[in-house]
């Protein structure tokens, strides 16, 4: 259950290869990559800074993976989340899961990113022509998580 918080970029192909290596029972790999957009709430975003809560972040991500593994039959799950300065087009987050079949993998991957958006202690600060601003949490993220309520 690897979970990583890092300033460096990640390579999807390399991560996928490591996740699958030596597991011929895997029949499905689903990944999600979140990236930095150049426009948010009508303002141009030149750069953003991602802050997090070292220690709690890793625990929160591991807890989300544990919840996903309890709900779906997965072989493995990976979360890589970047912190520090990021620019439009940069990759922010990778979620990848492996399973025997696609249904479990699709659902678990979406569940993990939905929960991450609500529960993992990361905060974005954007640099715009009007100055720096902290990004507000979105109501739509809460709505996205509610669909997973049992």
């Amino acid at each position, binding site marked *: 259950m690897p979970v990583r918080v890092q300033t460096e970029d990640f390579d999807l192909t390399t991560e996928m290869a490591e996740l699958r290596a030596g597991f011929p029972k895997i029949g499905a790999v689903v990944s999600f990559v979140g990236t930095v957009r150049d426009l948010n709430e009508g303002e141009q975003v030149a750069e953003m800074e991602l802050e997090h*809560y070292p*220690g*709690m972040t890793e625990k929160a991500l591991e807890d989300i993976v544990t919840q996903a593994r309890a709900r779906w039959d997965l072989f493995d799950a990976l979360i890589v989340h970047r912190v520090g300065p990021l620019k439009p087009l940069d990759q922010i987050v990778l979620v990848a899961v492996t399973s025997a079949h696609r249904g479990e993998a699709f659902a678990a991957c979406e569940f993990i*990113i939905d929960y991450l958006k609500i*529960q993992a*202690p990361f*905060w*974005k600060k954007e640099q715009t022509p009007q100055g720096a601003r*902290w990004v*507000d949490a979105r109501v739509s993220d809460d709505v996205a998580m509610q669909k997973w309520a049992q």
Partner: protein
Amino acid sequence: MQIHLRFFASLREAVGTSQETLELPADVKTANQVREHLRARRLADGRALRMAYNQQMAEPGTPLSEGCELAFFPPVTGG
């Protein structure tokens, strides 16, 4: 009781520090009571706020313990 406070993101900037140690009055026993105790520090006046007790999301009524870590931060915006 002595506890360790942590502040993140916009709350860290509003409070002006990222962490400090605080000696609590005897009648301050829960996470939300600490928030009220610190009201003069502009801790989230009118803004949404989340709390974590020993690096786990806390409820307003979460009880505190000697030497615990209590963190204040805005709703998260990662991913």
